[in-house]
Structure formats: C-alpha cells, structure tokens
C-alpha cells in the first residue's frame, strides 16, 4: 500500500483499517483478559499465547502505518 498516487488520499483507508484493527482487537484482548481469572492453567496458557500474538501483530501494524506516513512525507 505504500505506492500511492496523488489523486487518492493515501492515509484514510489505511488509517481506517488500523482503527478497525486496534479497536476490535483490543476488544478481544480485553475480553480474553477477563477470562484469565477463571481459566484452567492449560486454557490460560493457550489464551496468553493468542493474546501475545495478537498484541504483537497490532504493534507491527502500527509500525507499518507509521512507516507509510513517513514514506508519504518523503514522497511529498
């Protein structure tokens, strides 16, 4: 998505996608955190694994978005 032409406003769909991901994935992170207290050791390790993975993916997406903003700046 980093190759953008001038007649498209580049950041909007990307930003919108990011907001979608952050809001819905934070929602499930919160939901999962709520489940931890009553989970068996096996369940909680499985949950934690998924939570960590999700948090990492989110962090990567944020970095990617930041990079795309920078690339945009440079191309101007």
């Amino acid at each position, binding site marked *: 998505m980093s190759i953008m032409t001038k007649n498209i406003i580049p950041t909007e769909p990307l930003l919108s996608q990011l907001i979608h991901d952050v809001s819905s994935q934070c929602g499930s992170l919160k939901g999962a955190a709520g489940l931890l207290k009553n989970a068996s050791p096996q369940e909680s390790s499985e949950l934690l694994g*998924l939570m960590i993975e999700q948090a990492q993916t989110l962090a990567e997406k944020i970095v990617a978005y930041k990079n795309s903003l920078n690339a945009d700046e440079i191309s101007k």
Partner: protein
Amino acid sequence: MTKQGYQQSGSARKWLEVERPETMTKLAVLVVEDNPLAQKVLAAHLTGHNVEFAADLNTARQKLSDGNPDICFIDLKLGDKDDKCSGLKLIPLAQAKGSYCVVMSGHGSEPYVQKAYELGCHDFYAKGNEEVNVSKVLARFNQKRKKISEEFLFSQSFVTQDPQTRALIHEALNYAPSDLPILILGPSGTGKTKLASIIHDASVRRGEFVAINCSAYTQELLEAELFGYKRGAFTGANENRKGKLLMANEGTLFLDEIGSMSLEMQAKLLKAIEEKSFYPLGSERPETSNFRIISATLEDIQSLIKAGKLRFDFFQRIHGLTIELKPLAERKEDIFALVDFFTRQDKRLAFTEDAKEELLRHDWPGNIRELKKLVDLLVAGERGRVAAETVKKMLKTLRLQEGGVGFASEEQYRFAAREGLPQAIDRFIDAVVKRHLESNGGIKTKAVKDLRISTRLLYQSLERSGIPYTKRNVNHDQEHNTNGTTPIPAHS
C-alpha cells in the same frame, strides 16, 4: 387443573425449550469470525451450547448448508482486506435456515449494519463488550423464539384462540418432558387424542406414541392387546405377539376411554405401571417397559369413581395432571381459526355474513370433528362464498349421516357387542340423563318431562351413575311419560 409431583427427564424439543429455564436450553450456534482470540472469547460466553466456528466465507457456507444452527453470529469483516464486508453474504443463507442471525460490527463496518438488516439479520452488536452483549443477544433470541413457538403451536398444531384453553395447553406442554401422567377430559371431538400426540411429540421420548381405545375390545382381548401373548396362550393365539405396553417402551401409552376398562384390568394395569414390568399372557418371563401414560375419557370422571367403574388407586396413578378441554360451543372464537387451519392446503372458504352467524349459532355437539367434516363437505362442493342456507343444509346432512351410520357410534356398537345391548342401553340412558341434568341446573322434574321418561328410570339411572338424590325432589308427571312404564311414586 390439578397436578401432582413430577420428575423431569430429557430435554424438550426446540420450540418448547423456551418455556424452560435458560440454563437447560442447549442451542446450536455457528460463529463466523476470523480472529482466533475473538473466537475464544465468544466460545467462553457461549459455554454450554453446541458451538461451531468458521473463519472464512467458504467454511461458513459449508457449515450453514450442512447444519441447522439456532443462532448464527457473523463478523461482517472477514479478514484484513475485506473492505466489502463479505459476512453480509451469509445473512440470506442463515435466514433460509431459520437461524437467528446476529451481525457483529467493528470500526469501519458500521455503514454495513443497515444493509445487514435489509438482508434480514435479526440482531446486531458492536464488538468489544462480549460478556454483556452475548447474554443480551441470547435473551432477545429466547424472547423471540417464545413468540414464534406460541404462534406456531396455536395456529398450526393445536389451533385455539381461547385464552383459557391456551393456558391449559401451555401447562400440559410444560410437563411434556416429565414422567407425570396426564389425564385428558372433554366431550367427543374436542381434541383429546390430538393433544395427547402433541404432548408426546414435545416430550422427546425416543419411543413411540402407542394409542389404544379401551372401549374397542372385550376385556380378554384388551388384556392380550396390552400385555401381548405367547403362542398357544389361548385358542387363536397362533403366534407370539408384542403387547402395546412393550411397544410403548421409552414412549407414550395413550389409554383412550379408560372408563370402559374392567376393574380387574385396571388392577392389572396398575401393577404393571407401578412395577414397570408385566407378564405377557402365557409367558413365564416378565417383560419390562418404561412408558409415560396419557389417558382420556369423555365420561365424567367423578361419576365413574362414584359409580365404582374406576378404581381409586388406578385413578390416583393416572391423573397426575388433569386437562379438561372445553366443548367448541364454549370457544366459538376458535371456529374461524379452525376453518382456516383445515383449509390450509385447499382453496380457502369464504362465508357470507349470514353464514358466519349460522356457524356461530350452531352448538356443535360433535365439536371440532363435526366442524372438520363440515369443512370437508364445503371444500368438496362449494364455489364462491358460502351462504347461510348451504351451511344449514350441510349441517343437516351431517346430522343425518350421524343418524344413519353413527347413531350407534362405533364406540356404542362395540360396547353393545361386548357387554350386551341392555347394558349399552343403560349406559346410553345414563349419559343422556346426566347431560340433561348438567345443562339444566340439575332439575329432575325437567329431565323427566323433557326426556319423557319415568321417574323410576331416572332414579335407576342416577343410582348407576352414583349421583346422590332424594326422591322427594321429583314431581313425576304422568302426562309426559310416553314410554309406557308407570312412574314409581317417590315414597314407594
């Protein structure tokens, strides 16, 4: 309506479950969600239900076509690149399967929620607060299902608009999954057999609905029919035969016309019910069978007991819940709903205003069965709107048919063939006398006069029916006594 203690067993069928505590309702749920963590969270809030997952459109399509979920949770946006919210495509499929369709939206998919409703989704929530939202969805689903099931029950199954009858049916169905015996009372053609089979269907018993009309057999044959027999048990027993008790294993035994069962038979049956075990005729090996009893009679149950025709211990055993169905004349608002129901597969019948009044005026002695026969006649013969004259004519035709073939009803004929004509006549007299007294405030002089009987005949009948009386009450009237017998003075 009365009930005794009961035991719950099994779970009720889909449309019934709403009547029972939510915790007992196990739903089939399909969750269409691409995010594994979100799947886990939903699964946790749907614990206790049968939950399946699909992470993409194709899997979801497959699961929808293979299964029949009660509820379908659909994430609108399936995958990062799914700008068009492909989850929308699943809504018509879920709807076609009769699923309660819930869409879950996240940021960016809100504009599609309106579209989802247009496509037929039933419910929606914004992702992020599953704990609260899922339980709200389940509550709304149960609410809706309750309404739908009620509509179905009273418009397609046991048709009635009468609030009192509806309440009775509800009560009966609440006990459908239990072992509680049910006794259904009501005049001929009021739907006793129909209700019994609806209760069985709602009971989710594995076994069959096995009906037996006790008045259709001699006592020996009834015993053979109920308990079954071994080859050679009696002359004519050329092979082993399974009895109804065994056929009803894990199902329902419907005993119709219990009033005509001999006291001895009642005792034998009572023993079999209590011990859940019995000996087929001519067999040394006991059989076991586990069945639920529903019984019915059109006779007055208290008179049967008073007259010693029904053992009290047997009665105690079978009347766990007693449902008394009203005659159609007392729920005339049901007439048109029933007409619609009986013509649902044929062309609809339309009546002129006068014809409608005629239907409402008639007193329907044959109850719903009579109405059904009338509808059949009209559907076969009528074009256009049915006029009052036609209704009158057809009702008369039906009465004449009854007079020809049915005046001695099947039941009366069998009874006479079994017990002898004099016995059958006594029984007929008793039924007429009793009905007359009931419909005329118990005024005996009126019964003597209207029915043109002697007071002796009246007393004999009251005696047989176990109805208490003081002879002084009757002012016999010789003028109306046209049957040739001499009325007996009260003090003689």
